[in-house]
């Protein structure tokens, strides 16, 4: 067999976590939580960001040691001191962030993951064994390709294959479909579901997609703010009931209705070409017009040139050729042009792309206007009081949770960083808004608020370009939908007329 040591008895087993409590200093991340995953079941773990899902599974995997509580694997209580112990018990985890080494080949990554990598690897023998292993698996991956050259979907398949190659029979998947097209997600989850049904595998999947829970999971456990909020059989629950359990009594911002018609062309891209960091063409001569009072959504699996396109519009990357016009004028992302045309930007990873982490919330909110009245006199003398007053007003208006306006912005949670950037970018009238994955990793309340603000900006007549990996978000917000694949726009439709399967096919490049 491929694994050197004696394999543990075959077949799926269950895991119970009983009365789990986890404290980080004063912070109670898990409060007496119970999780029961039956052997041979597909179990979903639902919860908002910060609800304690990751903490719980990391306790099971031995990354953290729970302050209190017991873990029962199969029918025996186990003390899991580190991930190696968990692996030895047959527990495996697929992380949200890939743990493959991008500069190595798929085969190297698989062999490397073993506990018994030989001192000198006999590659011809290993390749033969890997091919034999792949022949038994439901999905295929190119063994000789470098991981950096394969698509996100294939990488996710590799991650799962790696766990199966290592003979793990209890798999924890952390948001496994966030980088996949809906069709790919269905394919991967469907194949795993088949293995579960055959009794070869037990799966615990962290997710926030109700569609996948309804389609694939047998049972669900829902966490809220570190506490067990509910659990039960999926067949007896509705998505609405699960969402209510997840959010609790919190009030969500109501999104304003879509009003008004699209006006004149505001943002025009003509044959824009841009390179990625490795010097390869990432954006292939794309052309697009966004009109006032319109949201154009760009869909696509991450890594198809969306990031580079947004960077060109944000002034973070120079276009190789082509031109960008805003309201008819050439645009090179200078500060004057952005100001004149009332451009706003919500880049992805706002803490990295739109903030200076070590500077205060007030300073970050003032970035666009800091050297102009009322923030500065004569263009150089800064009026700190004005910074703070303006920040206080926006902190209230946008419900930014920060201790003081002088707190460094890096101390805020992701949702509140995004709210602070939103407060800065959407202040005053906006004519062009460019948003990239604005809700990535945020909780329901923040998502609802950001969606409402984007829709309100559109209704006030802004031209909105929304780049997102979340198809549901695009379908909800955009008037028109464009699919980006390998740096090109391969599909365009009015959102009301777009067919989800056709969109998904184009996202996958078919």
């Amino acid at each position, binding site marked *: 067999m491929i694994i050197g040591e004696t394999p543990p008895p075959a077949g799926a087993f269950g895991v119970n976590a009983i009365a789990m409590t986890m404290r980080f200093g004063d912070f109670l991340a898990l409060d007496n939580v119970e999780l029961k995953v039956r052997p041979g079941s597909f179990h979903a773990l639902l919860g908002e960001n910060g609800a304690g899902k990751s903490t719980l599974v990391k306790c099971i995997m031995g990354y953290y040691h729970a302050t209190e509580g017991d873990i029962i694997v199969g029918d025996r209580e186990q003390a899991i001191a580190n991930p190696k112990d968990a692996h030895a018990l047959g527990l495996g985890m697929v992380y949200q962030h890939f*743990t493959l*080494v*991008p500069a190595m080949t798929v085969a190297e990554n698989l062999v490397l993951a073993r506990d018994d990598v030989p*001192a*000198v*690897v006999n590659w011809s023998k290993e390749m033969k064994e890997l091919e034999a292993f792949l022949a038994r698996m439901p999905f295929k991956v190119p063994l000789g390709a470098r991981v950096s050259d394969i698509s996100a979907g294939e990488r996710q398949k590799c991650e799962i294959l790696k766990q199966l190659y290592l003979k793990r029979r209890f798999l924890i998947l952390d948001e496994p479909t966030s980088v996949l097209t809906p069709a790919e997600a269905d394919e991967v989850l469907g194949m795993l579901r088949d293995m579960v049904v055959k009794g070869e595998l037990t799966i615990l999947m962290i997710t926030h997609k109700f569609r996948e829970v309804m389609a694939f999971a047998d049972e669900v456990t829902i966490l809220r703010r570190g506490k067990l909020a509910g659990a039960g059989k999926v067949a007896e629950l509705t998505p609405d009931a699960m969402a209510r359990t997840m959010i609790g009594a919190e009030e969500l911002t109501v999104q304003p209705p879509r009003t008004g018609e699209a006006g004149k062309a505001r943002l025009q891209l003509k044959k824009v070409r841009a*390179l990625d*960091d*490795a010097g390869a063409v990432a954006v292939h001569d794309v052309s697009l017009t966004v009109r006032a009072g319109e949201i154009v959504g760009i869909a696509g699996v991450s890594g198809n040139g969306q990031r580079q396109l947004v960077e060109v519009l944000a002034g973070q990357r120079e276009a190789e050729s082509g031109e960008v016009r805003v309201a008819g004028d050439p645009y090179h992302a200078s500060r004057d042009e952005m100001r004149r045309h009332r451009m706003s930007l919500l880049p992805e990873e706002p803490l990295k792309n739109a903030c200076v982490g070590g500077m205060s919330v007030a300073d970050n909110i003032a970035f666009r206007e800091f050297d102009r009245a009322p923030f500065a006199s004569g263009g150089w003398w800064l009026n700190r009081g004005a910074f703070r007053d303006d920040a206080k007003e926006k902190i209230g208006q946008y419900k930014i949770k920060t201790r003081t306006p002088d707190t460094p912005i890096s101390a805020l949670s992701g949702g509140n960083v995004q709210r602070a950037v939103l407060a800065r970018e959407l202040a005053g009238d906006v004519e062009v808004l460019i948003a990239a994955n604005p809700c990535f990793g945020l909780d329901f309340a923040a998502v609802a608020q950001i969606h409402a603000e984007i829709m309100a900006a559109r209704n006030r007549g802004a031209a909105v370009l929304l780049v997102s990996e979340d198809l549901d978000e695009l379908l909800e917000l955009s008037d028109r939908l464009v699919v980006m694949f390998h740096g090109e726009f391969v599909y365009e439709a009015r959102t009301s007329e777009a067919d989800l399967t056709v969109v998904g096919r184009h996202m996958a490049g078919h």
Partner: protein
Amino acid sequence: MADGSIGLWTVPLAVLGGAIRVSTPFLFVSLGECITERSGRINLGLEGTLVMGAMSAYGISYLTGSPWLGVLAAGITGALLGALHAGICSLPRVNDVAVGIALMLFGTGLAFYLGKPLIEPTAPRLSAIDFGWWSDIPQLRAALRVNVLFLIGVALAPILYWAFRTTRWGLLIRTAGESSDAARAMGHSVLLIRLRATMVGGFLAGIGGSFLSLFYPGSWNEGLSSGQGITAVALVIFARWDPLLCLWASLAFGGAAALGPALQSVGVTSGYHLFNAAPYILTLAIMIITCSPKRTLTGAPAELSITR
């Protein structure tokens, strides 16, 4: 030609000899640094390691009478300095570049202090293999007097190239250098891998230093290294972290360094100092040609502090 004068042929011969002789320390330091950097850490302290290696090799060779024991001592000294670098870098929030600069100064300073009594005495030197025995031309014979360390270095480059691909240690070093998250997720200690990689890197750099004091130029004094250690660190970047390219880059650099003295020996005296700068001009030129502000370095280990 009867008097052994071969005219302008002296220049390419001297460059060839230089490529073999001058390149050896570059080769050892750059191969060592290649291992360290592939594990995700930069050790700029190798200049200090080189000088400490030269000093300890000379001292041990003088005390024991065996130059090979000196080479071993230089390697051990280098490994200890590497362990010191890795140990300090294991502490949280410590920057490897800053530690490297500190160790560069520490290493040279310590070597000068401990090496004061070694400037006068003469230690037994490493012998050379005469590959030019078949020729009557003294310049060619001089160029082909090759030291065993050079041959070891030349053999080491393809061995490392092979080891990075097909040995467990090679794969682990690359994993630590490309994605420490991945290494941790597999249950490996990134710090331990880097400690070992830095120690091996220091070992090789120390041996590079022993070549300076025990073969060419072959004595111990404070002006022994003219920045070879730090140049070799740059060579690794220039060679795109590929051991085979490190070999070629070291040879090119050694050859270029011999250009100035060679031209002087045939009577081209104008611009002597300019020709001495040939290696540095070569580096600058290649860097400008091969780099672009719009691209990241290809082949750079993703965890290096300069590429992150």
